[in-house]
């Protein structure tokens, strides 16, 4: 048998043994037995001395080839076996990915707060300031400066919690408008503000009445503000709160502090305007009151109604939330059942 044939045979036998090796220990043994110093390949190479000078490099090259081949096969087998071990280990580590995740602490903003923030952000973007005045107000700012003198019949419309004859729990957030109008410097630009906050009425709490609720009132005063601007602004507000497909319509109404006064209705979101129980078959839902600021209000605050004018509006976030989510009892907003609060996850 020639040296070359021997090497070929060694090669084939070696590959077979490598293939047969079942674990890393086997692989190691095969490596030692094939390629070790006392292994057959070393043995064969030692026999090269007997070859003639012409043959020697050829066989030498062939032997190296065989050795490299076997080394590569060993490495490959080792990797295969290592992977198998790792895969077995990983398979063992498999978990039920459908088990629930570990709870983390996460609280939610109150639904009314979410609506107020949404309204604030909208008007901030349109260049309004946010101003919140005192909750305990003077009769002067809550009523008189709002064109509701002491004997005005409309005072009966808003039953008021008085503390003394002149001090009361504000029934609206518009007193802040009067306070701001008094101090605003129109040479610095128009007055554009919203005043969000808690207000109080002398009501017995029931599903549709609460002695405490929220209001956001808006006011814009400048030299050239129109009722069309009011309509456009309310449209933007309705679209922000309810969605673009909602229409706004204005109806005549009465507030002592605005003239003309309007109520704004939006398309009934329950029926989309076709008429249903929620909207009493009108297709519309009343959402806010508004109007052009009454000249008396401006005059009382020291603003010349012949030069300046503008609009005011007032919205009730409680009512919005009730309409938007179908909340059937206003008291839910103030009892703070966590099961209720948690339903209004802040989106985004």
């Amino acid at each position, binding site marked *: 048998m020639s040296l070359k044939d021997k090497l070929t045979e060694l090669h084939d036998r070696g590959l077979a043994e490598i293939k047969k090796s079942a674990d890393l220990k086997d692989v190691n043994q095969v490596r030692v037995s094939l390629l070790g110093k006392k292994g057959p390949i070393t043995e064969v190479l030692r026999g090269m001395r007997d070859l003639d000078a012409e043959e020697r490099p050829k066989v030498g090259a062939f032997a190296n080839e065989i050795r490299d081949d076997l080394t590569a096969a060993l490495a490959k087998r080792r990797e295969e076996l290592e992977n198998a071990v790792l895969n077995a280990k990983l398979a063992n580590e498999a978990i039920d990915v459908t*088990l*629930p995740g*570990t*709870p*983390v*602490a*996460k*609280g*939610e*903003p109150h639904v009314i*707060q979410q609506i107020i923030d949404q309204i604030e952000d909208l*008007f*901030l973007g*349109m*260049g*309004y*300031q*946010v101003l919140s005045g*005192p*909750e*305990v107000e*003077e009769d002067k700012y809550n009523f008189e400066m709002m064109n509701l003198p002491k004997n005005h*019949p409309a005072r*009966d419309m808003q039953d008021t919690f*008085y*503390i*003394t004859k002149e001090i009361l*729990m504000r029934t609206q957030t518009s007193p802040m408008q009067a306070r701001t109008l008094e101090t605003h410097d129109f040479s610095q*630009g*128009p007055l*554009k503000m919203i005043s969000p906050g808690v207000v109080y009425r*002398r*009501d*017995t709490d029931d599903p549709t009445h609460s*002695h*405490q609720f929220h209001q956001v009132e808006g006011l814009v005063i*400048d030299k*050239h503000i*129109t*009722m*069309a*601007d009011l*309509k*456009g*602004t309310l449209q933007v507000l309705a679209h922000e709160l309810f969605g673009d497909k909602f229409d706004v*319509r*204005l*109806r*005549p*109404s*009465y507030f002592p502090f605005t*003239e*003309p006064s309007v*109520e704004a209705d939006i398309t009934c979101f329950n029926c989309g305007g076709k008429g249903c129980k929620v909207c*009493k078959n009108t297709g519309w839902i009343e959402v806010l009151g508004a109007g052009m600021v009454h000249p008396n209000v401006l005059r009382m605050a020291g603003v010349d109604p012949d030069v300046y004018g503008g609009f005011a509006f007032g919205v009730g976030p409680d009512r919005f939330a009730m309409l938007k989510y179908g909340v059937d009892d206003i008291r839910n*907003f*103030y009892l*703070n059942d*966590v099961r209720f*609060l948690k339903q209004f996850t802040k989106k985004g």
Partner: protein
Amino acid sequence: MKISYNWIKEYLDLNVKPADLAEKIERTSVEVDDVIKPSDGLKKIVVGHVLSVEAHPDSDHLHICQVDVGEDEPLQIVCGAPNIAKDQKVIVALPGSRIADNVKIKKSKMRGVPSAGMICALQEIGFPEDVVPKAYADGIYVMPADATPGDAVYDYLGMNDSLIDLDVTPNRGDMLSLYGTLHDLSAIYDLPVKFDQPAVKETGAAIADQLTVHADAALAPQYRMRLVKQVKLAPSPMWLQIRLWNAGYRPINNVVDITNYIMLKYGQPLHAFDYDKFSGQDVYVRTAKAGEKLTTLDEGEHDLDDHDIVIADDQKPIALAGVMGGLDTAIADGTVTVAIEAAVFEHDHIRKAAQRHNLHTDASQRFERGVNQAGVQEALDAAAEMMTDLAGGEVQAGTVVATDNVPAPAVITITMSHINAVLGTELSQDQVTHILTTLGCEVTADGETLTVTVPVRRNDIHIPADLLEEIARIYSYDELPATLPTGRMTMGELTTAQKLMRATRHSLEGLGLNQAISYALTTEDKAKMFMMQASETTKLAWPMSVDHAVLRMNIITGLLDDIAYNSARKVKDVALYEQGRVFYREDGVDRPNEQEHIAGAITGTLLPTAWDLPAQPVDFYQVKGIVAAYLKDMAVNGDVTYVANHDMPEMHPGRTADILVHGHRIGFMGQVHPTIAKQFKIGATYVFELNLQAIIDMPKQENQYDVISRYPAITRDVAMLVDDDITNEQIVALIEKRGGAFLQSVKLFDVYDGVKVPKGKKSLAYTLTYQDKHATLVDDAVTQAFEKVEKRLQDDLGAEIR
């Protein structure tokens, strides 16, 4: 105010359905609460002729009736009404019919006798109890004798009319009448109205010889009376009864019905007195004298005082002016001479009288809002004429008049450019003039300046802005363009305080607390708990209930109420925060100072228990972690320290700490005292409350960059036994003070106070981290520094290093 569609159609050539008319009114003048057609929902209800009535053999109150309902054979109907009688025309609900409240009537047997249908009372076909004529209140209704058996009853009873229920705003008193509504509709639809005004046939003697009236113009700007003799009281004709009950009034007799009818038609409240019951021939409008009393028509007794305007004869008050007449001079059986009063009373007095005596009547409602002061005599004349017509009365010649102050019409100038500038429209002068004219105004123009004379009945129009509203609503708000304000730009930005309040809420939500909004008005007891500073209470003068009577001076009690509410509903894990105001008041000052606070309350577990998360009931340190993280979020500049407070009455004496920033107390935290928790019916609860205003006002840290050392850190652990009263803060302070230049941080990693340490001692263990920013630390240097600290711990705190 319910207004009849059919009645409107008598005056106005309208071609719209009732629902569309209602919609138009709502869009253009006042709100509409409802449109009702009384016959809606009723079925197979017809006129019956009672042919015979026999007693039921097995009942002492039932009757067996044979009733002709226009069919070949009469129906046998068992009827229990006490007023059933032969030959009556009655309301029959046939078998298969539907009566009020969607009740279906079927053939049945009553005590063994077959009954094919039901003979109905008005209430049973949907009439409200308070409009049914008294004669039929407790029995069946008897129809007019000429009603045809088998005909549906609806037209006989006015039930096919549509009634539009107007919710009239306080400024539109003119809409509280048919005529007022017609004026508005005339403008809305641009149609003429055919108003009628009857002439009075004065057949009697001169009234001036029989009656004199006296009034103070400040109380009654107008006061007039007519006298009608020889009236014959009787039920009103059917058409009049229908008008009244459809408007919500009970028909009483022709004289009283006429006064109500005229009020509905003209908006002018009238009062009919029995003239023969007057003492003397003089009638006075005056303020009441202290001690005077009056029994009103509704038999209510009223103590009067000088705030009340009364109508009086020689002796005593006979009516509470503008509110309700007196019982003594009321129209009653035997009345033959009627004095009809038509007046205008000062509205403020009337409003207050109605409130004081709790008598809100249709008359007071109209006087409060103002009646048509130019139409008082017309209404009076129309009433007198109807009393001739319907009660055979003789109207005495003339009207006695005490005061006659009809206000001058308002005259307003307004320019076209102002109208279009405020409304954002491009209306022409013709359009505007036309709108105002259809509303009854007289308009003269001088260039673009209009001079508008407003009819007296529109007492809500005084200034140009009032005219703008009239123009805008009749033109239609739908036609207004929708634009946004233009003009100088303004910045919209939250203030620093507003930003911090938002950041506060976001921070606490991120830390697991849900935002609560509780009531700021609470009980006096709760208002005064958990006080952070001395303050007087602020109380409502007239609270609705003791539960909401005093302004809170803490936020926590509201949160504890919320926890109690949850707890009562078996929700045991509650984590809430609230941002809001507390109200501190100084003695002698009426108005409290409002301070922003932030508070939290946690009961049960903060994190929900789960398969991989065992229950971890909230404790002091968890809440402290939240407070600390929140204050860090707010970048409060200065050391935050926690000092045990054993003295807050509502807090656990051993588990409460004051929270100080730079030595300044900004709040407290800890466990609610178990006695207080029990009082609120809640379990163990941990709370905190901070003065948010103080946090807003504090200086804040700026972010700054500090080089991260490239050189390795070395750590050393120290465990020690110390006396129980040595605090972590003392130990850390000492280590930090004596730790040497390279000490970077001290971290507590173990606290043990169990059986393995001697009584009165506890074991604490800390990791000290050393690092040199500029070089690699030498182990020896650390050891040296560390040993120095160990020694100080032993010497200064008596620590036993383990």
